[in-house]
């Protein structure tokens, strides 16, 4: 894999992460515990899908074969998507979705920070824009984690279980494969080992404030970055891609 190929794959992964998380979030767009939370959820999902659009467009330009954002989103198959497994997990209850966001955004914010200093054309600018959005998402979700953890006995138990369940999907974020390594070396991309240290520090601090327990070391799931997904991922794609697949070539 040469540097250019690695960069395209890297940008597509970032785009897939943003799109798949945004797609999960809009499944619950009119089902929040409070109207204010429905607004926040829609707003955050808009940010993620907006990021996905910029990143797919960037990937298309790097690739130079005329593929559009919609070609990447709607015309690729399950094995071609390389998002993190964490992000495709079903929404579950409010605490489950919250923990998913919190764990990812705690990682993503440091990843984006590194990317603002990378030398890849276009990517640093996108990262600089996205990090502003993700910082306030993370603030919102950290506050909710603290509220639920330090709320009632029931909320404490529920969100602890959410944290325990999601933890197995966090290891994948920090395992650098060839794509990560080439982008790190050739384009001054983020160093995942350094990101892992920052992530663990930040997550531990919020978890402690939420009076929750950090899950212990355990076997970690992997495969998302290699296009091997959970069984429910195919259903997410089938739903998302139905129009483009049913009416090939149509303009909407």
């Amino acid at each position, binding site marked *: 894999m040469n540097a250019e190929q690695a960069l395209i794959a890297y940008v597509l992964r970032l785009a897939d992460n943003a799109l798949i998380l945004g797609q999960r979030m809009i499944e619950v767009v*009119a089902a929040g515990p409070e109207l204010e*939370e429905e*607004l926040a959820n*829609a707003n955050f999902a808009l940010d993620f899908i907006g990021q996905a659009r910029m990143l797919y467009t960037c990937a298309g330009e790097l690739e130079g074969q005329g593929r559009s954002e919609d070609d990447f989103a709607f015309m690729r198959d399950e094995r071609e998507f390389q998002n993190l497994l964490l992000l495709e997990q079903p929404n579950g209850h409010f*605490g489950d979705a919250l923990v998913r966001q919190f764990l990812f955004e705690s990682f993503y914010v440091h990843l984006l920070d590194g990317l603002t200093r990378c030398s890849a054309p276009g990517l640093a600018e996108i990262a600089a824009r996205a990090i502003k959005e993700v910082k306030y998402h993370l603030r919102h979700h950290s506050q909710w984690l603290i509220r*639920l953890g330090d*709320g009632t006995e029931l909320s404490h138990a529920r969100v602890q279980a959410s944290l325990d369940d999601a933890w197995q999907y966090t290891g994948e974020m920090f395992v650098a494969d060839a794509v990560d390594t080439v982008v790190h070396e050739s384009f001054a991309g983020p160093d995942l080992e350094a990101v892992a240290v920052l992530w663990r520090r930040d997550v531990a601090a919020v978890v402690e404030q939420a009076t929750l327990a950090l899950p212990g070391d355990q076997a970690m799931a992997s495969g998302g970055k290699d296009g091997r997904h959970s069984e429910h991922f195919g259903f997410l794609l089938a739903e998302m891609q139905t*129009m483009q697949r049913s009416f090939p070539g149509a303009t909407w």
Partner: protein
Amino acid sequence: MYTQGLDQKDKHAASGQAIAESAEQLAAFQERIDAEEKIEAKDWMPEAYRRTLIRQISQHAHSEIIGMQPEGNWLTRAPSLKRKVILLAKIQDEAGHGLYLYAAAETLGVSRDQMVGDLLSGKAKYSSIFNYPTLTWADIGAIGWLVDGAAIMNQIPLCRCSFGPYARAMVRVCKEESFHQRQGFDILVTLSRGNDAQKAMMQDAFDRWWWPSLMMFGPSDTDSKHSAQSMAWKIKRISNDELRQKFVDATVPQAEFLGLKVPDEDLRLNAKTGHYEFGEIDWQEFLDVIAGNGPCNKQRLAKRQKAHADGAWVREAAQAYASKQAARAAA
């Protein structure tokens, strides 16, 4: 959107005034209205004026919130990323309108909890239009064009409503609704330039949404007995039938532009008046939907009830945390 609430009977009106209102007070109030003064939340107002506004504004808020559902039905399946974000932004606007309107109603002395409670119990109404299903992507275009279009017809006069907080809310809401209508029309323009399947999808959506959109203006003037007082109070400025006529006159040429056939054999342009004449609305269908027997009434309410019940533990946790924080701060 949605002033159908004005045409429902005020249940308290028949039981007489609980609070004594002198003829002088009522006359002075009417004088202010006639002088086009805005009534503010802190001003004296007749109890029936207050109740009418609470009913109308809360119904409007409920309509925005329930209205998120039929469009939300297509969010995960929107056919392009651009359409997906536009639809999502529109739905977010609607949640914002709901919040804004609940806040306007709260100035009249009713709590949001109480209003939401009335919605969830089925006591409060919302616009009949949202009890119809969105079956294809073209329905999203039809809703933007027809439903938001009808809503704008209704709401522009409300910008001059005598109650200040509601009038000001409507100025802002109308600006966003006008963007919503344009995005709906844009979806349909794209379909009208598409393939045969897309054109058929558009005509089918139009056939299903045309008549329910006309019903959005409420009963005909001859059957709308409760409008007179609202007109006198300048809550309502233009009658149901006049608004409906304006809507038909504005919409039929747009339908022709899109290459659509209006599903009404009686529709014709009266050259003398310059207005379109149209067939009789199926008022039984309207009454059925209002009474809770539309295609989606139960589904819409059940979804809201489930969201509320599922969120109870979250709201309780937030409350418990806030109490703990307050206790810690006091200690």
